């Protein structure tokens, strides 16, 4: 059997020291006008985190997204015809984001400083790390088109449905991110799509996935597209993904923890995607998982969903919902468990 790898994605818990700094110089202006001191301070936090991720042997990981209050605001600020509204609950968490208001046809603002990948690249350069050894492991965190649409206030008649918005968002906003990533040698884009995980989805699965498929087909195959779904599990979407998307550079993340019953809903037959990431470690509970429970859970997931190529192990949703100390303990457990599992698989051969 092939090697199973440990991976991380999404924002990490913000250390108090960084919050203190941001109170003087807000993180969401990091975009163009931020001072070198601010970048250096974020850089210090990132270095500590990336060193640990390497020490734990993670195959790939985000930059920690320490620069953003939430995953929507930084990218929203880089888009024309979007303004930022008040605080709104992020799904069913006691966590709030600033709601984007879509006021007309969206397109990227012109200066490249407004691209998230540029921001990440600037911060990484100010951190004391060897970029040549890390850049192909570090992912850029962006909200997916459907999550962006449904977490925004649509105050224009220009977009009467999520599909027309998704198309503009992918080709006018995400594509620009990806082009910038290529220039900087990034290899991973993490498209956060909790909206697609919802069982009460308002979206027509095949239509949504076909849009994604068309978009992926125009992209450079060197960039890995990681579609990350969490807080719920929608088997219909997963089925559509397994049917329509076969590209080797596409990875699908599922969360079988938040609503465990969702795994057993509907179809009996096993679904197969190209590359699969399974979030069996709970990022919304401080309890540290026991290996035996994880193995049981993993077996039951693999009975329903599996992959042709890679299988990754991860946390179910972003780790920022945990206290920092617990987030790091979870990462250590993910890495140790993965090592143990690989050893067992190897011995069995």
């Amino acid at each position, binding site marked *: 059997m092939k090697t199973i790898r440990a991976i991380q994605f999404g924002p990490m*818990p913000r250390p108090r020291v960084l919050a203190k700094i941001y109170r003087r110089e807000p993180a969401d202006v990091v975009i163009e006008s931020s001072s070198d001191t601010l970048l250096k301070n974020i850089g210090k936090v990132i270095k500590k985190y990336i060193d640990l991720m390497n020490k734990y042997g993670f195959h790939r990981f985000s930059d920690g997204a320490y620069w953003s209050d939430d995953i929507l605001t930084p990218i929203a600020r880089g888009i024309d015809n979007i303004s930022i509204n008040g605080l709104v609950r992020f799904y*069913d968490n*006691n966590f*709030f984001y600033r709601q984007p208001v879509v006021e007309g046809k969206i397109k990227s603002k012109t200066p490249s400083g407004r691209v998230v990948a540029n921001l990440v690249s600037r911060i990484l350069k100010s951190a004391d790390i060897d970029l040549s050894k890390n850049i192909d492991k570090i992912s850029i965190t962006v909200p997916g088109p459907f999550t962006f649409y449904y977490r925004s206030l649509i105050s224009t008649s220009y977009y009467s449905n999520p599909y027309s918005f998704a198309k503009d968002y992918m080709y006018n906003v995400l594509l620009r991110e990806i082009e910038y990533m290529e220039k900087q040698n990034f290899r991973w884009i993490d498209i956060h799509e909790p909206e697609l995980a919802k069982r009460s989805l308002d979206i027509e699965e095949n239509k949504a996935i076909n849009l994604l498929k068309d978009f992926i087909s125009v992209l450079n195959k060197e960039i890995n597209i990681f579609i990350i779904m969490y807080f719920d599990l929608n088997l219909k979407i997963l089925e559509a993904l397994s049917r329509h998307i076969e590209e080797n550079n596409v990875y699908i993340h599922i969360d079988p923890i938040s609503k465990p019953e969702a795994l057993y809903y509907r179809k009996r037959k096993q679904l197969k995607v190209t590359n699969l990431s399974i979030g069996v470690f709970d990022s919304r509970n*401080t309890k540290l998982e026991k290996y035996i429970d994880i193995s049981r859970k993993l077996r039951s997931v693999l009975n329903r969903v599996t992959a042709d190529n890679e299988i990754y192990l991860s946390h179910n949703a972003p780790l920022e919902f945990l206290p920092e100390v617990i987030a790091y303990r979870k990462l250590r457990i993910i890495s140790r468990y993965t090592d143990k599992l690989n050893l067992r698989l190897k011995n069995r051969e």
Partner: protein
Amino acid sequence: MDANRDIKLPILPTTVIGSYPRPRWLRKTIKLYRQGRIGEKDLNEAFNDAVTSVVREQEIVGIDIPSDGEMRRDEMVEYFAERIEGFKFYGPVRVWGNNFFNKPAVVGEIKRTKSITVDEFLYLNEVTTRDVVKFTITGPYTIADWSYNEYYRDKIELASKIASIINQEVRELQDNGAKFIQIDEPALTTHPEEVEWAVDIVNEVTKGVHIKLGLHVCYSDYITLSKYFDRLKYDQLALEFANRGFRDLDILKKLNDIEIGLGVIDVHNRSVEEESRVERAIEKAMKYVRPEKIYINPDCGLKLLPREIARRKLQVMVSATRRLRGVLAKKGYSYIVL
């Protein structure tokens, strides 16, 4: 209820939801305490003095039913979790921007080993010059929802354990002379699929309680909540309406015999409301609810506002209410009993 029959209040009694801005000197004192530069005795004296002054401030403004401003509480869930056995704190988690909350984790069987808030209530009751005060308790569902559950089988089991602890607390407050307690449940509709059992959990709190009980639910889905109005065993519902531009007021039709604590002041906006706007809002509510069933309050706790603005907002609320009382008096409405 029955125990309160002798307490008379003007029609449309004015009250608060609970928290009030901490005086600047109190914040400094707390900081000194955390740095180890003053002791617990000094801190307690400061808390008492702060309660005295914010209660007096509410009374001067004309609030009929003041609270202690929750001067002693940093955060509504944290405060209770610190005082109930079985909770542990690993560190802060972010709620928005640079605002953190010490989200507790349940790591063992939870137990109430001593009273949590009785001393707090007794102090408030002693310093007020009013006949009745409002005393606030965080509800069991919100405590469960804002905690990590490491110990109990599921959230229902955890929430019902907390409900029995909160019920004990409320009954002890009742025995100590409390006349009006408000249970705060801002999380109640966060998970629509859980509201069905969450309503039973919040009703657990009312067992053996004869004094007036209010339930405060804010920044929530009131359409969902209104489906459960007839199952709630509370005397009053305190809801936020200024924040939503007084939309959804028609849900008040479904309240039947439950009173409304009508939120008429936006606590997240620093600009002080026009008196006429508050008046119009109350008039609009009276289309759906009889005036003797309406209490007037801000949307939510005032603690995030600058103190001066909080005071001025209460002033506007009181004077708008007084104008309407004049109108109501001509129609024969003057007093109600608590």
